[in-house]
């Protein structure tokens, strides 16, 4: 299979403009003859569904939450980048493009990344017009803050709830189209499979989570906006129900999965407190502006933080990276925390935590200034841990946060299956091996508002309206498979809960395919995952029936897919014999312990094709070309 990026030729700043002109159009009167299915109602799915309906297409939108407004985009705190240059500090579309491609360690597609930066400015205009209450200056104009990986202030924000406000903006646009009858919304409905007709994606099979009824839905194209797979680690900052199922089902139907090993581990999260832990909570990266990170110098030092004298503390980031100090990038900070904890110098009951200490900043600026800057985060920390961070240092530890990998798409955001489009975190295209802060919201909305509505029109115009109905045999066959799978899960009646398997998989993935990976560990994981999967299918206990609301059954289906998907992640991590961005292979590092990229051999997108469960998927490579920004080595010393 030859992977064609379909990125247009010509100067980078004119590619998208040229492409928009070259694409075919569907005339306004004909748009109503086409129907699109959108799976997911987050920033990408919600904005796409609304925009397509505004254009005149018919849209069916599905989400497993009880309301479209609850998609996980809502949890994003910090902000959204846009190259507006409102601060007059030298920002430009090109600079945002450059920061993003460099931040991704030169493993993303240039043309896609440039387009992302280009449409970023339209997103802010759109959101403001919708009534999104961004932070403002006293003069009435928009405020900006700075964020990691950039030397300009280009981040727009709405207090610590930027994701919520942007999502509610998209949800309001979507609600309007639902009210107008152009979008049919299906909440509490989960996609369980993809249906192909003559090689094109023409529908999905879903389960109604209230009645348990399995039904088919047909359309002229299917858009997956189903988010990332960070919950493969069980513990992550993702919402509890985030899963890989929709993307993985598409993979099993022939869509390629690209760079699954690129998973971002965020350095500042509240550490695990016990086995019952269900999720990890992020503490905004901005805290590292004023907090100092340290652990005791001595192993197993169990004294209280206040009792450890200054000369017995190791401010390891300041020691190792004097010029960046506590503001070293996410991947470096995360790996350093793991290192000191593995040495036995971690803090807290479990020993997997490091201090983030505000004593110096409070001494220098006073408690009031710190409260004004971070008050809501300090409150949240206290609510969760019961400790007062004004008096004792916070304890933090890295956690799974975002996944850069996803289904392979071309420049049109279309997968290798014609008619199957993938947007937002669910695709792989814009962030390379590492994502910069405040770029996830930008990508979700760029794809949904400003890219997909154009590119899908070209597909429609080329293939024509097919008016496919869900009573065709293709749908009935897939429905039958879905039912059989559900019945299988319910019939095992073993001894272990679904969660216990998920936790076990999560521990394996975290240990062998987490912040640092090596050949031996990955090979071990590749032996253990299939064995765990077998135990799952023999011993899982799912109570209740398929014909009712059944949370264990829903969860069982998702965990079953994670148990297959985890293997693909490890295979990809094993294949990539280099360190780049968030993918750190211990064998490939410099003498100083920094990531060692191998551009000669690995400057490609690894796109995997399903060959059967338990069989090695086939690797297809999309070679990356860097026409405008040549790959360089990052240094933070």
């Amino acid at each position, binding site marked *: 299979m030859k992977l064609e990026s379909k990125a247009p030729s010509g100067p980078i700043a004119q590619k998208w403009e040229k492409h928009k002109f070259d694409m075919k159009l569907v005339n306004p009167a004909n748009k109503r003859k086409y129907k699109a299915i959108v799976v997911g109602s987050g920033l990408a799915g919600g904005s796409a569904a609304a925009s397509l309906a505004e254009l005149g297409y018919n849209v069916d939108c599905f989400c497993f939450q009880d309301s479209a407004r609850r998609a996980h985009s809502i949890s994003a705190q910090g902000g959204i980048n846009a190259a507006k240059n409102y601060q007059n500090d030298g920002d430009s579309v090109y600079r945002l493009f450059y920061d993003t491609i460099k931040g991704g360690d030169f493993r993303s597609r240039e043309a896609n990344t440039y387009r992302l930066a280009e449409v970023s400015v*339209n997103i802010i205009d759109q959101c403001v017009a*919708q009534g999104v209450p961004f932070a403002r200056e006293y003069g009435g104009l928009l405020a900006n803050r700075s964020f990691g990986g950039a030397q300009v202030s280009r981040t727009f924000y709405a207090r610590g709830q930027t994701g919520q406000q942007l999502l509610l903006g998209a949800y309001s646009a979507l609600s309007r189209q639902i009210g107008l009858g152009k979008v049919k919304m299906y*909440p509490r409905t989960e996609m369980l499979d993809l249906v192909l007709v003559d090689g094109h994606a023409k529908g999905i099979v879903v389960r109604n989570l209230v009645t348990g009824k399995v039904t088919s839905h047909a359309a002229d194209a299917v858009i997956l906006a189903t988010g990332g797979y960070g919950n493969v680690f069980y513990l992550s900052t993702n919402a*509890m129900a985030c899963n890989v199922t929709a993307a993985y089902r598409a993979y099993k139907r022939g869509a390629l999965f690209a760079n699954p090993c690129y998973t971002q581990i965020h350095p500042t999260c509240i550490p695990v407190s016990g086995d019952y832990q269900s999720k990890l909570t992020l503490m905004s990266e901005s805290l590292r502006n004023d907090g100092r990170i340290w652990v005791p110098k001595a192993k197993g030092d169990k004294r209280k933080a206040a009792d450890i004298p200054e000369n017995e503390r190791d401010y390891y980031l300041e020691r190792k990276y004097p010029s960046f100090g506590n503001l070293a990038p996410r991947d470096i900070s995360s790996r350093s925390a793991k290192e000191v904890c593995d040495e036995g110098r971690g803090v807290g009951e479990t020993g997997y935590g490091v201090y983030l200490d505000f004593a110096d900043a409070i001494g220098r600026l006073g408690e009031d200034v710190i409260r004004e800057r971070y008050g809501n985060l300090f409150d949240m920390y206290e609510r969760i841990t019961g400790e007062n961070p004004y008096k004792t240092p916070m304890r933090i530890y890295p956690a799974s946060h975002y996944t850069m990998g996803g289904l392979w798409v071309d420049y049109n955001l279309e997968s290798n299956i014609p008619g199957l489009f993938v947007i937002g975190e669910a695709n792989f295209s814009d962030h390379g091996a590492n994502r910069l802060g405040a770029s996830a919201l930008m990508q979700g909305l760029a794809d949904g508002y400003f890219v997909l509505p154009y590119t899908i029109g070209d597909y429609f115009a080329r293939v024509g309206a097919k008016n496919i109905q869900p009573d065709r045999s293709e749908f009935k066959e897939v429905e039958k498979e879905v039912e059989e799978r559900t019945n299988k899960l319910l019939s095992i009646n073993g001894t272990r809960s679904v969660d216990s398997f998920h936790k076990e998989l999560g521990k394996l993935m975290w240990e062998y395919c987490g912040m640092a990976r090596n050949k031996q560990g990955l090979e071990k994981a590749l032996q253990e995952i299939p064995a765990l999967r077998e135990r799952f299918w023999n011993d899982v206990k799912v109570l209740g029936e398929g014909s009712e609301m059944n949370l264990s059954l829903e969860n069982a289906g998702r965990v079953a897919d994670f148990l297959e998907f985890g293997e693909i992640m490890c295979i990809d991590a094993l294949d990539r014999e280099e360190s780049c961005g968030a993918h750190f292979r211990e064998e490939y590092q410099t003498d100083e312990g920094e990531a060692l990229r191998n551009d000669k051999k690995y400057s490609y997108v690894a796109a995997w094709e399903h060959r059967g469960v338990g069989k090695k998927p086939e690797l297809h490579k999309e070679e990356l070309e860097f026409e405008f920004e040549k790959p360089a080595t990052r240094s933070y010393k």
Partner: protein
Amino acid sequence: MNLTLKVWRQKNAQDKGRLETYEANNISEHMSFLEMLDVVNEQLVGEGVDPIHFDHDCREGICGACSLVINGTPHGHQKATTTCQLHMRHFKDGDTIYIEPFRAKAFPVIKDLVVDRSAFDRIMQAGGFVSVNTGGVPDANAIPIPKEAADKAMDAAACIGCGACVAACKNASAMLFVGAKVSQFASLPQGQVEREKRARAMVAQMDAEGFGNCTNFFECEAVCPKEIKVSVIAKMIREFFRAASTKS
């Protein structure tokens, strides 16, 4: 700590429902309330009992999925806190805890503690938006907005749509929820064009869904995890009267 739970179990919408008693033993003070329920559910599955169904997702207090009436109070007794952010250190060994669903005519129970809050979505579909299509909008800084107005809009926009306000109100009024959205748009220039139409449409849908009226007990404000103020209700009523005095 060891606790006794009295949990509302209801197989489906047709079932009458009842309180069942469960023991929750060896509960750590560091657990969240929902993690405590996870532990009980693991135990129930082991015993072959259908686990307790409840809505939840982000578990960081922002998605608005979690609900529960805990000892008579929506989201429990801790101020400005969703159920998922309530931790067990606020309970004592030997406590008996009553756990019930959000109750309102417009929020029918689906199963156990899970209720149908789609009435909120339908109110939003009636008018909770500014009618702008994607593209063709002015530059973001072409609409200057005084900081005070933007802050006020943000205070109202912080609503997570959980429905605790309805569950706390003896009239099952949704006016805090509707008022929050009406206030957000009424304080912004973008919301002016459809100001009257929005107030009329959202209030009409609110009534059609079967929510009651406000009788000024302010229980909604007391339980709101995002501390939305009842002044948004006054604002909504004012907007509604203003709309009523203009032509529809």
